[in-house]
């Protein structure tokens, strides 16, 4: 996984001009795509290939590592695929919302399937948004605007 470890420059007194997004997807192509989409929207991106890796990065894994708090304080948004082997996006969402240190971080769920019960379940569990794949640039722009408190 790659992750920015440089300090964000404070530009114009703005809160995170370059929000740090953790993108979770088991599909390599989708990871590459979401990374590109997010980078094009001026986001710093860290990708993870499954829920466990994501939780480890966020400091909830079994292994304790140094600089965990650095990772947590720097992640402004988590975007995750729903259908993943092992831990689903929904299960990951639950773990995040159950954690006192992580529950404030907005979580967006993506899925290739438009299933209302699935969508409602995620929103009820605290997901900020549900997005249909494949994602387009306009979806990510909308996402950024909604979640990063940008005023247009």
């Amino acid at each position: 996984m790659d992750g920015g470890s440089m300090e964000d420059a404070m530009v114009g007194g703005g809160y995170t001009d370059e929000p740090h997004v953790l993108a979770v997807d088991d599909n390599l192509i989708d990871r590459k795509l979401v990374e590109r989409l997010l980078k094009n929207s001026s986001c710093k991106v860290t990708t993870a290939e499954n829920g466990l890796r994501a939780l480890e990065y966020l400091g909830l894994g079994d292994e304790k590592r140094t600089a965990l708090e650095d990772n947590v304080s720097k992640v402004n948004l988590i975007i995750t695929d729903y259908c993943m082997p092992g831990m689903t996006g929904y299960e990951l969402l639950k773990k995040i919302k159950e954690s006192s240190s992580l529950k404030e971080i907005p979580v967006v769920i993506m899925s290739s399937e438009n299933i209302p019960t699935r969508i409602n379940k995620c929103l009820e569990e605290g997901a900020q948004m549900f997005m249909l794949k494949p994602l387009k640039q306009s979806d990510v722009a909308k996402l950024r605007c909604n979640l990063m408190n940008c005023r247009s």
Partner: protein
Amino acid sequence: MDVLSQLQRQLADFLASLYREGFVDDQFTQLQKLQDESSPDFVMEVVSLFFEDCEKLVNNMAKVLEQQVVDFKQVDSHVHQLKGSSSSIGAARIRNVCIAFKTFCEAQNREGCLRCLQQVNHEHAQLKANLQSLFTLERQIVAAGGTVPAMQ
């Protein structure tokens, strides 16, 4: 018409035919929009990853389908991956085969699955050849001093 204009005309016509014949759809356009100076080979990279992934999935599915007792859940999960990837890059024909493929998995129909697998192979080969021609044309245009416009 000079060489460059001819090549550009060829590219436009060729691209139009790919859309018209359903090889690619709007998501491919989205992919091209993601390519810029900071990631000039983005489309080619993603497409190459897709073809590698497709080949791997097809080989895995063939193995599973050869077994005495077929684990259709496994086949289905591979089809799900392929459907996702093909949808993400705009490989419309392959995605459509996956939709049919999924129903055969659910019906536990080995013959139907094998037919779909053959179709995937066929479409994979065709798309690969088509996109290689596309990339060659683009390279020729750049070599002749032109730039490659994004598809409208």
